[in-house]
């Protein structure tokens, strides 16, 4: 502020905060909004992570099975891997069923579709992670 703008008396009057009777309520409201915001962020991050993780696991398993069929079909190790993959796939699908997503047929989607879904989910998780990190640093 330049010298011609400065008026010490007015300045002093403005610096005095008014006594507001509901000051405690105001503080409580701000704290409540902070808690709420934090909960929403936590839930959004968790959900994005869960969706991204499920899709990524599913996609990885599908790709592994296909590769196993082409390259090392008939091999005992490949059979073992395929068995493990299928059981994990079953676990993921049963998890989806429990979440009420039984109709979500990931297997029926095309490879590109799943790829883009997984990529989108991962980007969302990465963006959320960067946002969180930027607040923490």
């Amino acid at each position, binding site marked *: 502020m*330049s010298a011609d703008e400065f008026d010490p008396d007015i300045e002093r009057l403005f610096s005095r905060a008014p*006594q507001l009777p509901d*000051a405690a309520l105001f*503080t409580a409201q*701000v704290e409540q909004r902070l808690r709420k915001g*934090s909960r929403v962020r936590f839930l959004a991050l968790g959900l994005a992570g869960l969706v991204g993780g499920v899709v990524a696991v599913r996609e990885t398993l599908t790709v592994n099975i296909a590769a196993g069929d082409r390259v090392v079909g008939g091999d005992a190790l490949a059979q073992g891997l395929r068995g493990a993959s299928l059981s994990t796939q079953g676990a993921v699908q049963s998890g989806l069923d429990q979440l009420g997503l039984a109709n979500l047929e990931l297997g029926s989607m095309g490879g590109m579709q799943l790829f883009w879904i997984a990529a989108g989910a991962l980007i969302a998780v990465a963006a959320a992670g960067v946002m969180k990190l930027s607040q*923490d640093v």
Partner: protein
Amino acid sequence: MTQSLVDRHDVELAALTAAGGRREFGELVRRHGSAVRGLLRRMGAQPSLADDIAQDAFLQAFERCSEFRGDGTFAAWVKRIAARLYIKRIAREARYVAEVGTEDVAPATDHAGRVDLDEALKALSEVERLCVSLCHGAGMAHPEIAAALNLPLGTVKSHVKRGLDKLRARLQPRPMGSTQHVG
């Protein structure tokens, strides 16, 4: 032995807030909430709107607390955030560009015939009140106010000068028994 929040300096509390401390931020809100709300009311915001904007300003301050370097006071920093949020709000409503006439009503006085600032501000037009509050309450320079309000610098200077003249006139102690309504 841990230092209680009440004993800590604002800068220290802000640093702890930046590290994720919500209790520390709560203490800052407790200390400066009324000042920020008061400034917004002095700028012309209705109490409920002032409180909403003050809350938004504090939430923004919480998110950006790591940006606070302690060059000025924490209260001044949050006041500027709040002032800018209020300007954005009224700019959306295109309110401040319209000169609102004020009734020439003598403000209420205390027993000594003194007028308090909040009463005296009622004598100013909306835009004068805004410019004076931004200048003296939020600590913004004239060019900053001109840019924020999208008004010519000369216009802002005139508003501040006229507003201050009115304030000084109103803040003069009045003899007891003078009429409440002028003109």
